[in-house]
């Protein structure tokens, strides 16, 4: 590979003075050019002899150059890729705190050490942030100077025609009866013209030079979009990072379980869990209310896989009429600046527990959490002591929506629908620990201060309850009635004001990326000199592209043919509205464009401007 040539290119490129170094292969190449250039400068600056002259400012400058160099950017990119991996190897607190706790329990040896290096909070860890922040600093340090440079280049003119064309990857020759000036004017017109379907699409920026001695030349350049796209891509990434961070700052997110027939108000107290960014003020929560009217679910009768979930709700936004809405998976509901997602569903048996004194100690629907695809659901009822001198009662058990007896005292659910529901419960008595002040999980029973109710043989008592039935609790604790089985939905509410910005920056980055990779950057030169046979004008042309560009030689040929055709039709340059037929033989001698067999000079800088 022509690395050495490339280096040479970079060094002689003199970036910032209109002509930017060519010979680097793609959108990112400019960064490389510059970085390599900086690297080269740095190599010179840090030779041992010059070391003593580096003061603190010098060292800072050196560090900055290092950070913004392409090689360090490359290193940081690879580091970022590697640093992201542990997050899917180890359980993450952000996704599944229970799994992290489990892992710490299972691995008492390495667990705490992994925790100390933030392996369970990888994406919020110091080292991960360090990598991507350094990467972004490097990116900004590289992109901003280049943006300035590109801005100058955008207003600049194409480079002057080089004296010799011999080193260029695409070359062409021809002769014309028209005068050199007319030929060059024709070439300029030909280059300026876009393709017929897009009048401004393929337009070159063209300069015409009088080189003296009757020789004229035209130099054209196109593809500024390439570097523009590259810069836009990188700047959009910065915008994306800022948008995401802003969203993190201003967002809130909460989960709530809403039982059929019950309402939900958008206030912190109504959420089961609630978290918000440090920039979000609680008083800005829009106080809309929502009621779950009905919940429909559909399952495949054979595979029992879910086919559809629909929650029918009534939404009341402040100052507005109540309206009926639906929430489905993939179709969140927008309410009060937040989106409401349907994340889960299940059954919430409506249970009433009366204590030994006949007082109602507990009444209401109890959400049971589905554990499998047939909705075998687990739930807990915590019955406090209402009448004096009573034990507190904890009832734990399973709901089987479509129960089937598979053995003596052994049941299982065979389908997720509510076909033949059965509650299988065990009863605990003692102290629920509600007064300890420690927040409790409502779906778990703290059995440490409780004893399980047993029958006379000392075997744990299991209650089997069907809808509408009332069963007596063991040990004369009271009675339990199953009133009905409403559905419940688990909702996820999220508000992120930066969402639109995230999307716009992401799409901008995509567009910029596509432009930077696919927009060809080309330079063409056409020179016309007198002194051919029979006083004809000798026309020569050359082309240079950034990177490997299969379209360069065909384009040079097109321009050359078109130029000669225009020149022959008359000295007047044809306007964009009179495109020349592309495939007509241009000249008796013909125009030929060729690509040398070994286009290793492709990456070359042209010689000194003529």
């Amino acid at each position, binding site marked *: *590979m022509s*690395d050495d040539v490339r280096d040479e290119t970079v060094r002689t490129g003199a970036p910032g003075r209109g002509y930017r170094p060519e010979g680097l292969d793609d959108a990112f190449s400019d960064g490389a050019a510059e970085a390599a250039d900086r690297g080269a400068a740095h190599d010179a600056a840090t030779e041992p002899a010059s070391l003593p002259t580096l003061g603190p400012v010098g060292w800072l400058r050196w560090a900055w150059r290092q950070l913004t160099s392409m090689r360090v950017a490359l290193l940081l990119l690879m580091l970022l890729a590697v640093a992201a991996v542990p997050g899917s190897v180890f359980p993450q607190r*952000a996704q599944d705190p229970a799994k992290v706790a489990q892992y710490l329990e299972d691995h008492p040896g390495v667990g705490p050490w992994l925790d100390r290096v933030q392996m369970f909070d990888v994406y919020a860890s110091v080292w991960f942030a360090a990598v991507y922040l350094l990467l972004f600093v490097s990116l900004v340090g590289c992109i901003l100077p280049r943006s300035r440079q590109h801005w100058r280049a955008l207003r600049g003119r194409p480079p002057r025609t080089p004296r010799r064309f011999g080193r260029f990857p695409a070359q062409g020759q021809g002769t014309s009866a028209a005068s050199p000036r007319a030929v060059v004017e024709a070439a300029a017109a030909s280059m300026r013209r876009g393709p017929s379907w897009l009048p401004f699409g393929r337009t070159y920026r063209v300069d015409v030079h009088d080189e003296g001695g009757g020789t004229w030349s035209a130099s054209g350049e196109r593809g500024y979009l390439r570097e523009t796209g590259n810069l836009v891509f990188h700047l959009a990434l910065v915008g994306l990072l800022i948008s995401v961070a802003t969203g993190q700052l201003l967002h809130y997110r909460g989960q709530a379980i809403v039982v059929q027939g019950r309402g939900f108000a958008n206030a912190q107290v109504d959420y089961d869990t609630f978290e918000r960014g440090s920039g979000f003020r609680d008083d800005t929560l829009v106080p809309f209310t929502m009621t779950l009217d009905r919940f429909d679910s559909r399952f495949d009768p054979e595979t029992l896989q879910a086919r559809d979930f629909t929650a029918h709700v009534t939404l009341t936004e402040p100052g507005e009429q109540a309206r009926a809405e639906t929430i489905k998976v993939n*179709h969140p509901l927008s309410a009060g600046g937040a*989106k409401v997602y349907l994340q889960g569903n299940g059954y919430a048996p409506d249970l009433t527990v009366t204590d030994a004194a006949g007082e109602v100690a507990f009444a209401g629907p109890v959400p049971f959490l589905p554990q499998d695809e047939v909705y075998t659901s687990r739930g807990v009822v915590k019955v406090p002591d209402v009448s004096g001198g009573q034990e507190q009662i904890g009832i734990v058990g399973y709901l089987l929506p479509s129960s089937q007896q598979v053995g003596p005292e052994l049941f299982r659910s065979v389908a997720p629908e509510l076909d033949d529901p059965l509650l299988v419960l065990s009863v605990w008595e003692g102290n629920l620990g509600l007064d300890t002040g420690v927040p409790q999980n409502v779906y778990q029973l703290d059995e440490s201060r409780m004893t399980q109710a047993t029958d006379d043989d000392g075997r744990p008592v299991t209650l089997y309850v069907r809808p509408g039935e009332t069963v007596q609790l063991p040990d004369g604790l009271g009675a339990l009635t199953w009133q009905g089985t409403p559905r419940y939905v688990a909702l996820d509410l999220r508000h992120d004001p930066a969402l639109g910005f995230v999307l716009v920056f992401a799409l901008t980055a995509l567009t910029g990326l*596509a432009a930077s990779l696919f927009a060809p950057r080309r330079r063409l030169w056409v020179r016309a000199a007198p002194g051919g046979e029979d006083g004809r004008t000798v026309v020569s042309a050359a082309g240079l592209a950034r990177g490997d560009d299969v379209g360069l030689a065909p384009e040079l040929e097109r321009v050359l043919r078109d130029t000669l055709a225009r020149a022959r039709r008359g000295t007047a340059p044809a306007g964009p509205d009179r495109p020349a037929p592309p495939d007509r033989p241009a000249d008796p001698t013909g125009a030929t464009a060729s690509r040398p067999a070994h286009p290793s000079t492709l990456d070359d800088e042209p010689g000194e401007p003529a």
Partner: protein
Amino acid sequence: MTTGNLSTLLVWAATTCFTIALVAYTVDLARVVDRAQKRRPVAAPVREAAVVGGGQATSVAEPPADVPGDATAAAAGGSSRAAGIARSTTYLGVVLLFVAIVLRGVAAGRWPTANMYEFTLVGAFVATLVLAIVQRRRPIAFVGVVVTGIAVLALVLGLNRFYVQADALPPALQNYWLVIHVGVAIVATGIFTVAFATSVLQVLADGREHGHSHLDHPWRSADGLRRALQGWSVTGPRFAWLEQVPDARRLEALSFRLNAIGFVLWTLTLIGGAIWAEHAWGRYWGWDPKEVGTFVAWVVYAAYLHARTTRGWSGRRAAYFVFAGYATVIANFTVVNLFFSGLHSYSGLK
């Protein structure tokens, strides 16, 4: 016979076609080697030398000046019977696979990219289609061998391990993004596959052009292993066919073009996935294992694009990034689907 079963049968038929194509490409490759050795009698003694002593085989790396153009023309124009068989069975396989995918969609009553099996089918289809297109322009038997090899492996694995009954979609997948997000991801994977094959070839060709092989220098502790592998030195006679393929520079350019398209599509996959995740899961990014894998692959390919323009990292070293990137893409598909639990667990396997 149900439509679903017919689809499965057609996948087997396509797999058979690609297997034949694989064999034919290999035969064609051998023919190219043969021809190269016949053309240059010097190659014969060197071969013996390589068998006996090994290391001196480097002299082969200097091709006579007239050979490349000549032989490439011969390889391109003078289509052997094997090459013809390879081409036509590839086309046939692509068509059969396409019909199989359509029937699969008909049987399930939806767009057929919802589980690992269907992803494998469509991925293999895209890879072989890209192969068929690339081969029309430059017949490179080696790329054919690698791509049909991967396709056959993927299809057999898909049929035997990933297969699930054609069925309707769970609610989480009922979204038009299934077509865009997964479709684009599959196309990107297919393109990355061909680009990967090209990069492998590029590194081999580069090694031969520069006449250096890692097998030429003694390996400190594992020198026995090195001697056992000696015959597989890239500078040795077994790789004489490398002189018939386009030079490393052109292969690098081809690989870059494919990777550039793949990278843009991969970016689109990421963005589409984020938009869909925002609809379905209530967040556009949540570091789900699949998201992490896709992100890592994206970063590695981004590193590749940077590397190939960095001094001292272009060419051969940049190709190593392609290997890493492709490995990430494949791991993201297989390892993450099968061994990590996450929201993207749609393999349909238990």
